[in-house]
């Protein structure tokens, strides 16, 4: 600790703190422009200069570390004059076109001039003008260089936080201008973080251009609906019309950052394919009807299928309350445990349960990254959880976090990693086993003999020898780490080997725990409320609170609380539900907010199975492909049209808030569940969102004690239960069959992650065309080059898209993003087979090019 006196107030601060930080703690305001909390100080704007006793010159408080006993003054006439002078200089060439500037009203320069500026400027010469027409840097970013004050926040944000390095600075002195490479933003993520941090109206959002004045906007703090990172954001709407998103600088996992989906991908709420009215199938076609008519029809149909099995699928983007109510409806009204929450995979709960119970760390990611070693397993965090990636990059660059990557897909974050283990898709379990074996070796048997005497009791211990060089390096790095965090991409659940992968993860974490690395673990979900969906018990074998259905005590407690019986046998997961449908055993399948026809492997099969359900009920806000097959379609409120809570990857419960009324005749999801229950002459109690939240807080241990009013701007953390006693140590995974040819994997791309992003006009504009990615080597071998139209063919089907050659790709790997509706990727995929063997070849030209024109041409 060192002590500092600022304006006569004394304070003890940690060594290394800056004068600015100390002043902030004392509540002394120091104006800044170039300073940004999460970036290294630049100290260029000179707004924050202060007097320090014993120093000849004024010093930038943002970059001056406190020396014990330092005496600082920020309130002298010299400081007033200096601040005023800096602003005077900044204004000299500033266009002062505030009346037509989008930033007007929330501009830091304006505010600063009002607070500290000269009353009047004496500048009377011609102003410098870079251009008279604003420059469109990208589909979402427009720039007015004349207004730029050169704080470089944008450039640094782009390079150091986002990692895109799309913006740069050219020329020098007064000609200095921020721009992209050759005037466009070649490697840009379109995340708009540069726009967010620009203090003035230099970098602006194009979609929001000239749309509104900040004081006309009704702003609502809410949570991003896209991925499980769960960023806090603020929606600005004018007269109920969605206008823009911006981030709340001090709050949430993300603070001032968002990714492209969060910042620009919320316009899907205005998408045109909203379901306007309830629909029922009449003479083979869906026809709009009133709610009453739909109710009568549904009542009748439901009573006709009573004897058969029921099933339900709900989207892991729905708020906790809706999910909780859904499983309650299914379990108590339809008396079934056939419920699931992913349209893409089924989750082996027997392996997942112990992993989550034993290791899931419900704590800020920021804290987890503070561990000196972070292992990221699977997926592509850059594309799937961009803001999580920013935090990881920050850890690696500024907090000396050792980043380790183990995945089939390369990502931008690899560049910041200490070690990268590129694995063959499908061999994740084997690679993890190799890491475990390597770790045993790296630890030296001596200290581990005892550990394994304990753990080994359950099994034969790890049998894989650490021959793999990459796995060994990873193991050594893990061994060197004092504390380890493991982040697991939910992507791993796609594979039929998911069980083995989860088991090996469990082994790894147990070992790390035994080695005293206090491992922390979180999943990286690509859906906003996947963890919430598990917590709420939207799984066939699990009750709310992730307690097994077969756990009598847990079941009884809930039965008592709900005043209804819960079937005692675990239900069918979605995979099995589809099979039951296909064999004609399902009476009604109730799908809420999910589009399995688009997403579940083997489109033909899914279509057949959904068609074979006697009654298909789809409750959604958009007219999905699945809804097109339904017998009854119930229009539900969409994002922003009802309030609730979401639980992000960190286990942080956050309020997702309503900012407008449900469109057309849509009703809130809870209202619809009530409606459906009533059709079965039952009532669900409680039925309002707030009351349901309270019930959740009462009945689910991880949510114990939470109250919705207390979910402030940072939300509140759910709690992990006490870790169960060390579980079994699983045997080695099956050796993956080595495939010689190309294997196809899928996942999210940066711009899309599911059916809501596909309905965002802006995301569709900025996203690449549908594409197929492969390594340069494979492409060359196949005689293909970047941009070629190629056909990807599996045993099941084929698709055509543009080839993207990725020089970071390993040989043999083919990637097609799962998010492009037009590609119908799932028609290539087979169930229980992932990755998918494929062939790739040049697409046949659709028209002949006239050959060999004669000489003389």
């Amino acid at each position, binding site marked *: 600790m060192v002590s500092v006196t600022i304006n006569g107030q004394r304070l003890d601060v940690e060594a290394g703190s800056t004068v600015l930080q100390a002043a902030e703690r004392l509540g002394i305001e120091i104006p800044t422009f170039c300073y940004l909390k999460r970036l290294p100080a630049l100290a260029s704007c000179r707004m924050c200069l202060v007097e320090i006793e014993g120093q000849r010159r004024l010093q930038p408080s943002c970059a001056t570390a406190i020396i014990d006993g330092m005496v600082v003054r920020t309130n002298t006439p010299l400081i007033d004059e200096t601040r005023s002078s800096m602003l005077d200089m900044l204004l000299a060439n500033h266009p002062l076109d505030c009346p037509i500037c989008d930033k007007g009203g929330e501009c830091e320069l304006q505010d600063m001039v009002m607070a500290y500026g000269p009353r009047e400027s004496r500048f009377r010469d011609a102003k410098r003008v870079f251009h008279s027409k604003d420059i469109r840097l990208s589909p979402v970013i427009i720039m007015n260089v004349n207004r730029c004050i050169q704080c470089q926040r944008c450039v640094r944000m782009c390079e150091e936080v986002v990692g895109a390095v799309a913006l740069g600075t050219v020329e020098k002195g007064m*000609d200095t201008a921020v721009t992209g490479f050759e005037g466009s933003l070649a490697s840009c993520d379109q995340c708009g973080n540069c726009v967010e941090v620009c203090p003035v109206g230099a970098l602006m959002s194009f979609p929001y251009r000239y749309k509104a004045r900040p004081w006309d906007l009704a702003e609502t703090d809410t949570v991003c609906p896209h991925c499980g990172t769960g960023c806090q954001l603020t929606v600005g709407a004018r007269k109920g019309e969605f206008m823009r998103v911006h981030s709340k600088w001090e709050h949430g996992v993300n603070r001032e950052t968002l990714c492209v989906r969060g910042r620009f991908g919320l316009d899907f709420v205005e998408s045109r394919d909203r379901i306007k009215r309830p629909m029922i199938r009449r003479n083979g076609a869906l026809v709009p009807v009133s709610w009453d008519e739909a109710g009568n029809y549904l009542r009748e149909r439901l009573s006709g299928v009573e004897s058969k099995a029921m099933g339900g699928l709900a989207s892991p983007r729905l708020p906790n309350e809706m999910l909780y109510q859904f499983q309650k409806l299914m379990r108590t009204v339809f008396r079934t445990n056939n419920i699931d929450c992913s349209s893409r995979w089924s989750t082996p709960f027997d392996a997942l349960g112990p992993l989550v119970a034993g290791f899931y760390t419900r704590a800020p990611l920021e804290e987890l990254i503070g561990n000196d070693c972070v292992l990221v397993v699977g997926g592509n965090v850059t594309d799937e959880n961009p803001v999580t990636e920013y935090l990881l990059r920050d850890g690696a660059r500024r907090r000396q976090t050792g980043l380790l990557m183990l995945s089939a897909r390369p990502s931008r974050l690899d560049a910041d990693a200490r070690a990268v283990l590129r694995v063959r898709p499908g061999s994740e379990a084997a690679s993890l086993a190799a890491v475990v074996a390597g770790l045993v070796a790296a630890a030296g048997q001596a200290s581990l003999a005892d550990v394994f005497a304990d753990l080994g009791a359950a099994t034969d211990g790890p049998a894989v020898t650490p021959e793999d060089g990459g796995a060994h390096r990873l193991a050594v790095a893990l061994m060197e780490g004092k504390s380890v965090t493991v982040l697991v991409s939910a992507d791993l659940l796609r594979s039929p080997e998911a069980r083995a992968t989860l088991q090996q993860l469990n082994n790894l974490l147990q070992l790390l725990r035994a080695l005293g690395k206090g491992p922390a673990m979180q999943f990286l979900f690509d859906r906003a409320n996947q963890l919430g969906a598990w917590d709420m018990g939207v799984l066939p074998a699990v009750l709310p609170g992730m307690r097994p259905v077969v756990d009598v005590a847990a079941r009884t407690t809930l039965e008592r609380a709900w005043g209804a019986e819960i079937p005692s046998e675990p239900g069918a997961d979605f995979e099995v539900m589809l099979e039951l449908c296909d064999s004609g055993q399902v009476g009604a399948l109730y799908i809420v907010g999910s589009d399995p026809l688009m997403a579940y492997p083997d489109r033909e099969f899914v279509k057949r199975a959904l068609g074979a359900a006697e009654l298909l009920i789809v409750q959604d806000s958009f007219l999905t492909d699945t809804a097109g097959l339904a017998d009854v379609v119930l229009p539900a409120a969409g994002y922003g049209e009802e309030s609730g809570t979401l639980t992000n990857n960190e286990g942080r419960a956050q309020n997702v808030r309503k900012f407008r009324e449900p469109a057309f005749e849509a009703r809130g999801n809870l209202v619809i569940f009530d409606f459906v229950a009533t059709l079965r002459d039952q009532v669900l109690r409680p039925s309002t969102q707030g009351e349901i939240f309270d019930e959740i807080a009462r009945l689910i241990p991880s949510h114990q004690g939470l109250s919705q009013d207390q979910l402030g701007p940072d939300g509140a953390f759910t709690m992990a239960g006490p870790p169960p006693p060390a579980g079994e140590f699983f045997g080695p995974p099956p050796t993956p069959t080595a495939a010689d040819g190309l294997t196809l994997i899928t996942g999210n791309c940066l711009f899309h992650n599911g059916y809501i992003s596909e309905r965002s006009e802006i995301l569709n504009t900025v996203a690449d065309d549908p594409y197929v990615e492969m390594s340069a080597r494979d492409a060359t071998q196949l005689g293909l080059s970047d941009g070629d139209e190629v056909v990807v063919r599996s045993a099941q089907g084929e698709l055509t898209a543009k080839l993207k050659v990725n020089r970071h790709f390993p040989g043999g790997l083919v990637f097609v993003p799962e998010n492009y509706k037009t590609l119908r990727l799932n028609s290539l995929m087979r169930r229980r087979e992932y990755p998918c063997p494929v062939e790739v070849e040049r697409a046949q030209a659709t028209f002949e090019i006239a050959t060999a024109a004669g000489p003389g041409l």
Partner: protein
Amino acid sequence: MFEPVLLRNVGVPDGHLLATYRAGGGYQALAKALHEHTPDEIIDLVKNSNLRGRGGAGFPTGMKWSFVPKKAAKPKYLCCNADEGEPGTFKDRIIMERDPHQLVEGMAISAYAIGAETAYVYIRGEYTLAIRRLERAIAEAEAEGYLGKRILGSDFSFVVHIHCGAGAYICGEETAMLDSLEGKRAQPRLKPPFPAVEGLYASPTVINNVETLACVPHIVMRGPNWFRGIGPDKSPGPKLYCVSGQVRKPGLYELPMGIPLRELVEDHAGGPPPGRKIKAVIPGGVSAPLIPALGLDVGMDFDSLAAAGSMLGSAGVIVIDDSTCIVKVATRIIEFFHHESCGKCTPCREGLNWVVKVLRRVETGQGAPGDLEQLKALCNGIFGNTFCALGDGAAMGLRAALAHFEDEFVAHIEEQRCPFNEKHAGRELLGSYG
């Protein structure tokens, strides 16, 4: 007569070749350093010599070297600052053109002292002859084993790379130079960390001027006391003065530190052209505030000039006679700084732009009442508040011009014209060298 040290080979035919250099005793200092001294002893020699950096700031060289951590995980680097961007300065150029081996030997000894195995010479891109000769000298020295692996049978290995600048003055500022060497846009870096600890590629780095490094072999050969015996004890040594402007014999002079400015200008450089009187002298490149004729008795060393409100800087001595308009001089100088401002910090980037606009108006007879107050206010806003010394230098120079020659500025505004205009077409100023 002062016996030349640094310029000793300049008049010698083929002075730039290794044979000539060796014939004059060249590379003996390197051999002596490697065989008779430990690196620390070399640092002590240089410390005891009181050698101060010739690049402008006059920082004690031995002390700078001693800041380099003895044990470092990363390689250490030596950077030779040969950017010589300061208007009125042409000393490093002459060393590199006429006696490049002197620099090579100086670098080798310095690198040995700080434990660097690699040096970069950041050389002004326009110095094509100097670049060619230095390249040749490096090749010759490599061929003869003065550079390369295990030099002269010792354990010391050392290579030198040349990097040509692309014409920005700010690249002469040592940390901006490091950014430029790393392939980035050159802008000064925040200190701390200081380059000695975290410089090039975040490794310990020493940056020294060409002339500074050229002094080192002589200190090794003749000893620190000899060096300290030349000129003032706190600021000693042989010194190169670049005299330009309105004098009869402009040129590069090697004389002891501390000689009176008057002696340099009037005796050695021959004084002003016939019929003219000296009005002012800029003693250390355009970053140094001018000294009016009355102050010419000041000694040309770091401390005396600082006490006189100016600085030795790069020892670019620019003489201004009474036919020259000071407003014009000030305007040209500020135009230079304005053009060369890197643009990083507000006061230099925005402030100088404003200053230039006002000065140009005043100079061309369009000044208005209040302009001088505005200029002074701008100097106050700039001076002391900029990120690096460039902005400070600009403001200091203008302040001095305003302080000593306010009447000329006032005359421009009152008469709405330049009083010197008829008498003087205005091309000579700053134009008499090069």
